[in-house]
């Protein structure tokens, strides 16, 4: 086994996801199978290989911090799940 049910539960908390016990069991099996497949990477000796994060050579692009095409606050707030006047309304985070 590459991954256990307990690990799946731990990762679910990290990812802010939750699963029913049935889903958890199926998911553990599926992730295990995928991770076993990924194990084939261990066949390769990569001790001297630099990791590649980006396929095309580009350097950090700087630009002036100027406001452009600012959407109206109404069009942004229109998508809010809950709104109060010109504010996003969110669950209480401090007791």
């Amino acid at each position: 086994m590459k991954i256990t049910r307990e690990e799946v539960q731990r990762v679910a908390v990290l990812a802010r996801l939750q699963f029913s016990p049935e889903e958890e069991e199926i998911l553990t099996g599926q992730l295990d199978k995928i991770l076993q497949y990924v194990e084939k990477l261990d066949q390769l000796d990569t001790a001297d290989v630099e990791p590649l994060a980006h396929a095309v050579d580009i350097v950090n692009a700087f630009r002036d911090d100027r406001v452009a095409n600012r959407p109206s606050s109404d069009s942004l707030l229109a998508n809010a799940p809950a709104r109060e006047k010109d504010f996003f309304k969110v669950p209480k985070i401090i007791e």
Partner: protein
Amino acid sequence: MSLHALTLHDLHGKLEKREVSSVEITESVFQRISSTEEKLHCYITLCRDAAVQEAKRADERLKRGEASAPLLGIPVALKDIFLTRGLRTTCASKILGSFIPPYDATTVRKLKEAGAVVTGKTNMDEFAMGSSTENSAFAATRNPWNPERVPGGSSGGSAAAVAADQCIAALGTDTGGSIRQPASCCGIVGMKPTYGRVSRYGVIAFASSLDQVGPMTKDVTDCALMLEAIAGHDPSDSTSVDAPAPAYAGFLNGDIKGLRVGIPKEYFIKGIQPEVEQGVKDAIRVIERNGAGVEEISLPHTEYAVAVYYIIATAEASSNLARYDGMKYGYRAPARDLTETYMKSREEGFGAEVKRRIMLGTYALSAGYYDAYYLKAQKVRALIKRDFAEAFRKCDAIVTPTAPTTAFKIGEKTQDPLQMYLSDIFTISVNLAGLPGLSLPCGFDGDGLPIGMQIIGKHFDEATILKLAFAYEQATEWHKKKPILDHG
């Protein structure tokens, strides 16, 4: 032939000569949608009224005799991953089920400025995660060549819409094959440009080091025209490259004499459908007869690409999709406190495949596993890129099958994620290496399903790919074949 069945460049000619109007073309396309959509489910959202208004404006511009851009007055469909100002954009997810973007993606803005008429937003696998368009929260799109088959994915709605003449051309996105594989399944042309060639601003992110926007069209000329319209530097996307995009249509002259074409032996392997292998090998002979030199090459790390991809893409996705927290936009589930709001909103808002990938990516990045999975995958990614760099010393373009099989049956792979992932085995390396790749039709199997051939080019050398694809297309008739749909 009905207007909806014509290509972009044919219609452009007719519009310029004032033989037809954009309103007539747009009405024809929407008639086609009305008669076939119930069967195919290509779209998530249609915008007929806005399209007709846009077509009227295009006709006015044509009437004034404006030197017209090739896209002026042409009905174009957009994958539902592109932000469209004021038009619902869902990414085929319940979590964005009622999201109305406040701005346009750069590519959408460019198409609109060129005068294109947006028909609607096409169906896809949720958050572009899938190879069959079955992972949509709305409906599964059907393949126009056979409604029992998938259209491929994740840009399956765009591919099926182009194949069924429900639009003249479309935009898709490609992270591991999501333009090329559905293009192959539906018998159309689809191109993933070089990473950085086209802006990703306003495209809902899946895996940011791999995602790229590209055209899905009825033939190679249309592909070149669409690419010209969307390519170029965008200050709003820090990974978009500041290099001039050439006038691609100028390369379509059919002359491929002396071009060196590499055939990687690792792409003709056990498990590939024999008719696909035969179709691509026949196509290679056509290319050779037209004057190109063909030689076998090797891309030794090909067999590791799927494993690398499903670590890197899921890791990036787990980070990108952390933004869906039910606070400022998107679905929010009723809950007792903040943590439960996050958990329940994401549990109810995301589909099974998206959750599976978030889990895999979070696991690969988590303490104790990072080196074994994520770092290892990044190192093998470097080896895959190096393979191509070596190969391109000997050749100007590489030809392979686009997918190991033609379109599979609906439901065939939904229970086995790994089998689904393996349908992208020939397209994924191209994303990992950041290269441009194109799929075009090169035959049919015994069930009448299209076979796709992939052409891979050097970084920023889309021109050579299009040149080779055009020469092959002109030598064959595949692109003229259309699926027979019952309702006219």
